[in-house]
């Protein structure tokens, strides 16, 4: 019935590039050396001394996202954890030449993502997945371009994720909450895109909004595949919907 043309190819390419640059990630996962979300340990020391951490016990089970609405909510919770960790790092180590306006904007976004993260944790209660460990070694936090392009990619990814996951929420209260969050993610995406290309069509560019005026949409499985390279914790994404 609808053209499901998946715009956002630019994000896809960017994510692949980042994922490839994250060559260290595979090693980290296998060795169990991870960077705590709360510590955001992406410092040079961490890069140089990964063996300083003890590996996890072998055979640890991957994190299960649960089933039904909890599966979708945990999926969203994982994305929000990723975003929250990213912006925390952005504010912790600001790129060179950052303006006061950019600092305020990115700090606002950081707070929003922290709120989303903590909201999902509270809403899921005992059904919540644990705090995830992330890996942003592919991001140059000293570079405005690297930070903002990554931010744009995460925000657009988040928008497409909520747009694609909405139909899997059975509980209409959860659907409404997802709606309350996705429009804020879209506001973020537009603002960050505008920082990269001020006062152009980029804030809602043809690379994400198709000729029908519809924003990008991705299946949960597609989103997971794109986000997983940045998440060190092993997650079982096999149960996520692929349509």
């Amino acid at each position, binding site marked *: 019935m609808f053209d499901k043309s998946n715009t956002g190819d630019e994000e896809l390419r960017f994510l692949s590039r980042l994922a490839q640059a994250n060559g260290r990630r595979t090693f980290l996962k296998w060795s169990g050396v991870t960077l705590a979300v709360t510590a955001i340990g992406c410092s040079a020391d961490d890069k140089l001394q990964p063996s300083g951490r003890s590996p996890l016990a072998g055979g640890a089970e991957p994190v299960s996202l649960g089933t039904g609405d909890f599966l979708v909510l945990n999926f969203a919770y994982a994305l929000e954890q990723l975003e929250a960790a990213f912006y925390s790092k952005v504010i912790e180590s600001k790129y060179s030449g950052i303006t006061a306006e950019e600092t305020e904007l990115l700090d606002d976004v950081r707070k*929003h993502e922290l709120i989303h993260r903590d909201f999902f944790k509270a809403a899921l209660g005992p059904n919540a997945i644990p705090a995830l460990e992330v890996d942003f070694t592919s991001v140059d936090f000293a570079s405005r371009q690297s930070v903002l392009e990554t931010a744009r990619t995460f925000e657009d990814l988040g928008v497409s994720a909520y747009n694609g996951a909405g*139909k899997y929420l059975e509980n*209409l209260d959860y659907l409404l*909450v997802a709606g309350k969050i996705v*429009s804020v993610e*879209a*506001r973020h995406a537009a603002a960050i895109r505008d920082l990269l290309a001020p*006062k152009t*069509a980029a804030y809602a560019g043809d690379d994400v909004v198709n000729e029908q005026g519809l924003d990008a949409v991705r299946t949960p499985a597609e989103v997971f595949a794109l986000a997983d390279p940045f998440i060190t914790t092993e997650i079982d994404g096999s149960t996520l919907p692929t349509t």
Partner: protein
Amino acid sequence: MNKEKKLILEALENPDVLQRKTTRRDAVRGGGIFGAGVALATMPVLLAGLTRRAFAQSALPNSIINVLNFALVLEYLESDFYVAGLAAPGLIPSSDRAVFEQVSKHETAHIAFLEGVLGDKKAIRPTFDLTGRGAFPDVLTNYQTFLAVSQGLEDTGVRAYKGQAGAVASNDDILTAALRIHSVEARHASEVRRLRGQKGWITGNQTDVAALAPTYAGEQNTTHLGIDTASFQGVDAATEAFDEPLDLESVLAIAGTFGTGPIG
């Protein structure tokens, strides 16, 4: 779902209630649909327009057809607004035209999309008073006024689509399409707000334009699924982090201020 909204949705599913040739007062009195609290002055003519063709046979249930027509009427309003703005000589500075050409392109695309889904069930296109019945007399000659009204329309659009998500949730394709339009409206809103020197997100129920207050009513909410998020990162950030829905009745009241029909 609150009781009021449930009543409206039930009423919309019942052709007899809205197809009747009634005055708005009759509708309020007879149907009891909209409750006593509705400002009659703003109950639009739009409602008649959007329901007139809404009850022919269709694969889609009437409840969804009505929601889509509701969205279509809002898109008609937005599209007329941007087409007029872009055509008004000297209104939009050349530095900002690319932004509004993109908005206008999307609103036109949304119309084509919704009309395509609705087929011959689509609402009759109303005519609009873009000055908001005189509330914004210089909307097409003063860029700051144009920006303010644009912000109001976009932020209202976001709330309108959000408020109807549950009403179309029984159809996955329609729900997903509505969500995809919803996030485009949010991108527009963010951009226009920032052009005005505002944040891209809504803090509390704040607005610097008194006439837009109804668009932001309730946006200060910080409690979702029974969880108060105000303590996480402060109240302001909590209100910004979640956009609130607006029910059909409130959206129609806002859109109705741009109607051209008789009042009251």
